[in-house]
Structure formats: structure tokens, C-alpha cells
């Protein structure tokens, strides 16, 4: 549970088809899981996405169709929309991938009460991306009452998501 529910913020980023995605308009009426990460991430990002994807597979369509998963890249230089699509399709082809400039994305994260991502250069021209490990879960009231940390297990998602769809949280 969040100490205080987090409100949605207005932003428009580019989806993996290259089309603008108006977050508030397109997620209205859905349970929306929002996560900021990058595709070169070794474990935190793919495990979150894989766990959610695996659990959604087991839900009946009527539950699944009320949930949207939005992944926003914190590494826009390397995560092209095409690469994002390829990566997300490993977990669930319905996952939405969003792309914007680092500044735009950082601004959104801060507005959502998450820390901005940090980019650090390493030797050899590589760089690493630090990012929040939490998934924000917005319900149909357009508030996130719950944020899920890294380490959330499939059993937790399977337990919680249908409740969030039913507007229940605790």
C-alpha cells in the first residue's frame, strides 16, 4: 500500500508502433500497471514483466481484458520502439511499450512519485541505468493505491490483480 494514493499524470509518449500514446485517455477504465525500466536490464525488469505476463496467461479473458501493462523505457537511446516491441513480446504481446526523451521520462517518473533514472557511464563507452524497481498499479479510480516492489511473486500478482479489477485493495 502507498502511504498516500498516487494520482495519474498527463503525458503522451510514443508507442512501439510509432504512434502517440495519451496515457490518461488510453488507460481510463482499466487497471494499469506502470513500470519504468530498460531492455538491457538483467533481472529486475524482465522478471517483473515475465511474472506479470505469466499470471495474465492464466486469467480468464474478462479479467485479462481489464488490465493494461505499460512499460516506459528509461534508456531511450538503446531502446528503440522496435527493440522495445521485440523485448515485450517475449512476455506478452499486449504489453504497451513507451518511448520518450530521457528528460520527458524523468519528469513523468518524478511526477508519479518515483525517483528519476540515473545514467552512469562506465569504461568502454558502456553505461548503466539505475531505475526504480516498483510497479505502480492504477485502478479504475485513476489512483495507484499499491506499488509493487521487486521481488513480487507470481502468487502475489495472481492474488491481487483480480481484486484490483474489482476495485478492491488493501
Amino acid at each position, binding site marked *: *500500500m*502507498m502511504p498516500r494514493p498516487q494520482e495519474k499524470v498527463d503525458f503522451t509518449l510514443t508507442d512501439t508502433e510509432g504512434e502517440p500514446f495519451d496515457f490518461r485517455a488510453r488507460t481510463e477504465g482499466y487497471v494499469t500497471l506502470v513500470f519504468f525500466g530498460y*531492455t*538491457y*536490464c*538483467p*533481472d*529486475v525488469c*524482465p*522478471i517483473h*514483466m*515475465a*511474472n506479470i*505476463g*505469466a499470471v495474465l496467461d492464466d486469467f480468464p479473458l474478462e479479467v485479462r481484458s481489464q488490465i493494461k501493462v505499460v512499460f516506459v523505457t528509461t534508456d531511450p537511446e538503446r531502446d528503440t520502439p522496435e*527493440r522495445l516491441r*521485440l*523485448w515485450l513480446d*517475449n*512476455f506478452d504481446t499486449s504489453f504497451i511499450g513507451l518511448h520518450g526523451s530521457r528528460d520527458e521520462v524523468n519528469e513523468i517518473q518524478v511526477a508519479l512519485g*518515483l*525517483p528519476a*533514472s*540515473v545514467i*552512469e557511464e*562506465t569504461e568502454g563507452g558502456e553505461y*548503466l*541505468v*539505475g*531505475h*526504480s*524497481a*516498483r510497479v505502480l498499479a492504477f485502478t479504475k479510480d485513476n489512483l495507484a493505491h*499499491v*506499488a*509493487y*516492489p*521487486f*521481488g*513480487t*511473486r*507470481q502468487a502475489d500478482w495472481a492474488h491481487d490483480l483480480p481484486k484490483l479489477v474489482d476495485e478492491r485493495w488493501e
Partner: protein
Amino acid sequence: MTNRTYRLRHSAILALAVTIALACISRETPERIDLEVSRVFVTEPVTGERAAMYFSVTNNGDVDDELLAVSTAAAEVAEIHRTEHEGSTMKMVPVDALTVPAGGRVDLAPGGYHVMLLELTQNLFPDDRFDVTLRFRHAGEVVARARVIRYEDVEELVGGAALSDPHNSR
């Protein structure tokens, strides 16, 4: 009679000598080195270029050891990485060595340590197996067999090193 007494005494002296010799051996033998590497899992590379490897090292010996390097024919580069936590932000940083204390066990797991396999030389699919060589400061080279697994199976097969997020009580 005298002869028999002599023999008795002689064997007692011999026994004492053996005991002393054994004591000397155990005192002078360099520390016992006994490392066991188990549960070697590699995540299926989602976009083909990199994969994370996890395993457990059990040190049954009586000297601290250090994992210095990892190599495998499956990747050009293998780096030991640690995930650093700052609040809910996570980022991975390379480390030079990983200590395995005498009598202790180190589990590489998501959110903690992993070995990053970069520049993969072959396609890896779930259930593929390949050898990895771990080089320790004292134990030298240990070869173990790695198995490729899907990200959604990581929580069950590997678990996690960061299953709680102190900044977020969910």
C-alpha cells in the same frame, strides 16, 4: 619376560609417536579447500545479446575463498555484477571479486549478484546446457554445467536476493 615388557613399551611409544605425527600433519596441512558450485542457471536472453547467470557456491573448506572470474564458450565476456539498491532504485555495477566465506554459502540471485554474459556466441534456448568455468583465488578452476531457463521460472528456481523493499510496505 623382559623382552615382552620391552615390546609393550615399544608399541606404546610407537603409538604415541604416531599420534604426535598426526597432530603435526593436521597442524601443518594448509587449510582444507573444498568448494561446491550448484544450481547454475542462465536466463533466456530475451533480445539475444546478453544473459544473466546465477548459481550457489558452498564453501565446505576452512579458508575464505573469492570468485575472481567466470568464463564460458557461450559468451565472449562474463562479468560479475552486483545490484545496488538506493531506496527503490536499483542499478547493477561490476565488481572485481565475490567472497565466499569459509563454512558459508553465497547465492547469486536477482537483486543481488549475477554474472552478466555479454556478446553471446550462440543462441540460447530454455533447457540448453553448457559448461562454465569459475575461477577462485584458492580453489582454482571449477567447471559446472549451466541450464538455460525462462525468466518466469526464475522466482521458483533461483529465488531472489531482494524480496523486500524496505521503502515500501506492501
